[in-house]
């Protein structure tokens, strides 16, 4: 039985209102499920808002019971109805659900950041901070790259934690559960951020959900990883699998040496990942190359650097198919400030802020074929009957200019 402090007991008994009581009840059940001995306070939270039915149902339930967040969380994107209504006609039910969700989260005290990469901008934890982060691509980033401590929370469990200000002490909050379980020797050169997408996707298929310690043997820069590459790695490991933390030998804070990473002088298991492994997974998950109807980037939200790379390719040209780049609002404003947004719009493209690909605002693309750089984007939109060719960001951009994905387009333009 989990041991509660006096305040936590009072929360459970309803002394802080019914909403807080509901949240604490759920957290106690989670604590019991994982045999957590007690609760610990959190300093940050991120809630994977989605305005899907379960999300709206749960947040409205807590709000109706008077819950208020003790730790104000940042939130995931839904869709930007003001921007999207200029591109397509939105159904009033869909807009209504977005507004209701917005309203409920504001009432409960969330910060309406609408971004799936909060760890890069508005919610950045420090090493050893105990936090509650949902969003499966955010959890591995904060655990692995920053050395903060969170379990792989669901949207609802993170919201409960934001309300009570505590989480059960178990899982990845404990040092011994964060140790590496397998040494992954990456033999591929890993020249592009896209290679990290493929690596992230293929790894769980090969080794299951063990905590990997990456050794990038043939990567030229061993101490320089772009935000996008690490973001991609974590996002894809949690699409084909369920991996809340990873280590990079000689780079991430808990892996300065092999002994550090494995918390032992012994490496329990080893595996090699080759360029062929990466190529084979792409062939398996991508739609066949050929003509496309649109390009959709930003799952997770593109960084400014990524948007700049796209912009360089399309500057002064005309896109053959619509291009939608999803990013955070601060990134979009930076693009506006820097003139990047204007260049994209002149080519016929769009930056959409606060928006996720897994939202009903993309109905006008259902049944069509697009190009993306994200396996995660292709995976979750299966339910929405969208088909994607998956290729690197540069090639995907060239494809949007031509209206067709060919295998080796890059060379024609260099």
């Amino acid at each position: 039985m989990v041991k509660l402090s006096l305040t936590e007991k009072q929360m459970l008994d309803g002394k802080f209102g019914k909403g807080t009581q509901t949240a604490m009840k759920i957290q106690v059940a989670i604590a019991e499920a994982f045999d957590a001995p007690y609760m610990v306070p959190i300093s940050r939270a991120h809630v994977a808002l989605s305005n899907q039915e379960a999300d709206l149902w749960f947040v409205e339930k807590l709000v109706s019971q008077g819950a208020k967040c003790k730790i104000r969380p940042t939130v995931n994107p839904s869709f930007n109805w003001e921007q999207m209504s200029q591109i397509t006609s939105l159904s009033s039910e869909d807009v209504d659900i977005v507004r209701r969700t917005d309203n409920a989260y504001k009432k409960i005290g969330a910060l309406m950041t609408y971004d799936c990469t909060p760890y890069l901008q508005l919610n950045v934890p420090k090493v050893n901070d105990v936090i509650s982060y949902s969003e499966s691509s955010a959890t591995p980033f904060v655990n692995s790259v920053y050395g903060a401590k969170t379990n792989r929370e669901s949207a609802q469990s993170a919201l409960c934690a934001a309300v009570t200000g505590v989480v059960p002490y178990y899982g990845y909050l404990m040092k011994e559960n964060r140790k590496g379980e397998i040494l992954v020797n990456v033999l591929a050169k890993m020249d592009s951020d896209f290679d990290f997408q493929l690596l992230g996707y293929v790894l769980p298929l090969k080794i299951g959900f063990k905590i990997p310690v990456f050794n990038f043997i043939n990567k030229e820069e061993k101490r320089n990883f772009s935000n996008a590459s690490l973001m991609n790695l974590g996002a894809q490991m949690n699409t084909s699998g369920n991996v809340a933390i990873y280590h990079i030998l000689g780079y991430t804070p808990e892996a300065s040496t092999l002994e550090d990473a494995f918390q032992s002088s012994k490496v329990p298991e080893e595996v090699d990942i080759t360029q062929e492994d990466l190529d084979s997974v792409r062939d398996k998950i991508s739609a066949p190359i050929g003509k496309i109807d649109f390009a959709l980037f930003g799952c997770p939200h593109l960084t400014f650097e990524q948007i700049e790379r796209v912009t360089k390719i399309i500057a002064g040209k005309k896109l053959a198919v619509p291009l939608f780049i999803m990013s955070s609002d601060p990134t979009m404003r930076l693009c506006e400030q820097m003139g990047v947004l204007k260049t994209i719009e002149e080519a016929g493209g769009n930056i959409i802020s606060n928006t996720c690909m897994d939202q009903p605002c993309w109905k006008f693309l259902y049944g069509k074929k697009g190009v993306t750089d994200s396996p995660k984007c292709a995976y979750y939109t299966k339910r929405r009957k969208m088909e994607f060719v998956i290729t690197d960001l540069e090639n995907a951009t060239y494809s949007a200019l031509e209206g067709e994905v060919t295998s080796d387009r890059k060379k024609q333009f260099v």
Partner: protein
Amino acid sequence: MTEKSNLFKCHKISEGKTSGEVLFSKDGICFYLIDPESGVVIERNHSLFGKSIANKILVFPNGTGSSVVQADGMYQLKMHNMGPKAMIVENADTTLVASSIIMEIPLVDKVDSNFNENVKNKDILEVNAIEGEIKLVQKGE
């Protein structure tokens, strides 16, 4: 068959008591990639592709999928009465645990090791996720 192999101890995660037909999945389950109106798995390359999990006692190794879609998939299945009656999992993760507690679907783990030898698809089980017990009530074939 002895009485002993009809009864399996387990660890309660999400409370409840129910009975139904058992369905094993070799692969992890992403509830979002199950059609909420029929309970049919729509994920290609999945061992249950094309099969319905509706009202089954679902036995699977782990959950897969993002922190959002697991809860929503489960919620929609439940709203259409197409969800699993109970779930028996090998490796429980936070998302699966939180979703089943909130959606009030019974979930257990740490089942006796002889469970897999004694229980097959189509058998009828009684899952008591209050006491932490699973009973094999009837063999399928």
